C-alpha cells in the first residue's frame, strides 16, 4: 500500500481519472454556463450544424458525475441493484467456468491428436466467426429457460477465445522440452502433466483474461435482448444489462450511467481476480 502511494504511476492514474470527471462535469453543465448572451453566436452555429442549441453536443446530454453519484447513493441501498450485480456475476462466472471446463480439454485434444484436430477443428472454425449475440434467438428457442440461454451465450463468448489460445499455446511449446523429457525417461502421461500442461498454462491465462472481457460484453447484451430472465426475478434482479435497459425505458438517465459504471467496475474486478490467479499459477513468468 505504501509502495503504491509513493508510485508516481499511481498518482498519474488518479489525476487522469480526476481530470476526466472534472471535464465531464463541466461538459454536462454546459446548459448552465452557456446561458449568457456571449455564447449566442456559438449556439447559432450549433443549431446550423443540426444540434440542439442550448448545450454542448453529446456531452451536454449526459448526466453529470455529481448527478450520477446522487442516483448511485439512492440505488446503493436498493436490494434490486445488488441483485442485478449478483445475477450478472453469476451468469458471467457460470458461462466462463463452463467455457474453461470444456474449452481447455477441447483445445488440448485438438493440439495433441491429429484425429481430434481433423474431426473437431473444421466444425469449430465454421462456428467460431458467428458472434455470440447472433445465437440469442436460437438459444432462447432451444434452451428450456431464459437463464440457461443467457448462460449459454456467455459461455460462447469465452469458449472460442480459450480454445484458440490453448491450441496455439500447446502447439508452440518448444520441441526441445519434449525431447529432453523423453530422454530423461518421462512417459506420455508424464509429458502431458509435466510439459504440455505447464507449457500451455500461460496461454490458458491469456485466453481466459480475453475471454472474461468478452463474457462481460456478451452478458450485458444478452440481458438487454432477452429481458433479463424476467420469470425468475421479474424487474428485480435481471442483471446489470437489464438494469440499464430498465433505466433507459424508465427515463432515468443517471441510472443508465450508474449501470454502465457498475459494469466497468465488475469487469475490472473480474479481470483483476483473473490476473491475480494467473500470476499465482505461473510464478516463473515474473522472472522475465
Amino acid at each position, binding site marked *: 500500500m505504501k509502495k503504491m502511494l509513493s508510485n508516481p504511476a499511481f498518482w498519474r492514474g488518479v489525476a487522469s481519472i480526476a481530470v476526466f470527471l472534472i471535464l465531464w462535469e463541466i461538459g454536462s453543465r454546459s446548459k448552465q454556463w452557456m446561458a449568457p448572451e456571449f455564447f449566442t453566436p456559438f449556439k447559432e452555429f450549433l443549431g446550423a450544424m443540426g444540434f440542439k442549441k442550448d448545450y454542448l453536443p453529446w456531452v451536454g446530454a449526459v448526466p453529470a458525475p455529481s448527478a450520477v453519484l446522487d442516483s448511485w447513493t439512492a440505488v446503493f441501498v436498493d436490494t434490486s441493484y445488488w441483485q442485478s450485480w449478483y445475477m450478472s456475476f453469476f451468469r458471467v462466472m457460470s458461462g466462463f467456468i463452463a467455457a474453461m471446463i470444456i474449452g481447455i480439454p477441447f483445445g488440448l485434444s485438438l493440439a495433441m491428436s491429429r484425429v481430434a484436430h481433423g474431426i473437431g477443428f473444421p466444425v469449430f472454425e465454421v462456428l467460431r466467426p458467428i458472434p455470440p449475440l447472433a445465437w440469442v434467438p436460437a438459444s432462447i428457442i432451444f434452451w428450456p429457460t431464459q437463464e440457461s440461454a443467457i448462460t449459454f451465450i456467455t459461455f460462447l463468448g469465452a469458449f472460442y477465445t480459450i480454445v484458440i489460445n490453448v491450441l496455439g499455446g500447446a502447439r508452440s511449446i518448444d520441441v526441445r522440452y519434449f525431447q529432453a523429457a523423453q530422454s530423461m*525417461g518421462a512417459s506420455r502421461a508424464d509429458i502431458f502433466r509435466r510439459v504440455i500442461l505447464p507449457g500451455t498454462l500461460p496461454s490458458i491465462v491469456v485466453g481466459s483474461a480475453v475471454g472474461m472481457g468478452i463474457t462481460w460484453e456478451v452478458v450485458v447484451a444478452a440481458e438487454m435482448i432477452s429481458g433479463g430472465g424476467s420469470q425468475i426475478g421479474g424487474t428485480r434482479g435481471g442483471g446489470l444489462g437489464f438494469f440499464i435497459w430498465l433505466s433507459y425505458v424508465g427515463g432515468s438517465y443517471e441510472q443508465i450511467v450508474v449501470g454502465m459504471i457498475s459494469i466497468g467496475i465488475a469487469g475490472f474486478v473480474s479481470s483483476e481476480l483473473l490476473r491475480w490467479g494467473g500470476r499465482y499459477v505461473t510464478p516463473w*513468468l515474473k522472472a522475465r
Partner: protein
Amino acid sequence: MDQSVGAIHRERPPAASTRGHILIEDVVKVYDPAGAAVMAVDHCSLEIEPGEICMIVGPSGCGKTTLLNAIAGFHEITSGRIVMDGEVLCSTGRPKATPGPDRIVVFQNGALFPWKTNLENVVFGPVMQGKLARKEAIDKGRAMLADAGLSGVEHNYPGEVSSGMRRRVEIVRALMNDPKALLLDEPYRALDSLTKSVMHEALLEIYYKNKVTIFFITHDLEEAIFLGHRVAIMTTRPCKPKKILNVDIPHPRDYGVLTSKRFRELIEETNDAVHEEALKAFQAGEKEG
C-alpha cells in the same frame, strides 16, 4: 580432401571409463529422399572411446546436429548403424533410436523447463525413471548443484539466472541421470567469450569428477582443441569426418593451455581444414542451424 579419415580412428583411448563407447558406422542421412533428397550425412564413421571428449567441428548447417539427433534418438537415419557399448541404437532396419537417459542432450539454446525451479529441473530425470525417491533425488540434486557452485540458485527459476548458470544447471540435470554419454550441441554458442571461458573450465571440472563420454558439437576450433581429447573436423553438407586431430595436451587442462605453444601449433595444423569447409558452406549459402 584428406583420405586417411574415412576409417575408424582409435589412436588415443583415454581409458578413463569403461562405458560410453560409441561406434558410428557408415551412417547416411538423406532428408526428403522422395523429393529434394538433401544429403546431410554421407557415410560417416567415427568411434568414440569410453570417457573420451570428442569434439565435432564444422561450419553451421553442415549436418553435425543431424548426427547428434541420430545418436539421441530424435531423428531417423537413412542407413548405417550406431552402436553404444555393444547395443545397436539404430541401424538401417531400425532407423530411429529410442531416446534414453544413457544419452542426454544439452541443447544449443538450453532446454531447462522454465516452469520448474532449477532444483526441480535437476531432479526430473531420476524421479521420472523411478531410480530415486523424490526426497533422495532432492538430496542428490542439492549436492550436485553445490558441487557445481550453484547452491544459491536452487530455488530460482531458470529465467531468473544468467545464461551461463542455466547451462551449468542443465549439465548437472544431465549428469543426474547417470548417463553414459553427454551430447552437447553448441551449448555455449550464445554466450559471450568471457562467460564461455569460465564455462569451459567448469565443464572440465565437472568432467574430471564424472568421467562420461562427451560428444560435443561446436564451430569454434579453439574451444574444440581446448576441451577435446580428439577433434573431428567435418566436411560441410554432406557431413563426414575430414580430418581427425589427436590433441596431445595432457588433461587436466586449465586456461594456461590457451597460450601454450602446442595449442597454437594444433590450431595452425587444423585451421586451414576448418576454413576450407567454412568457405564451402558460405558459398553453398547454407542456412544457420
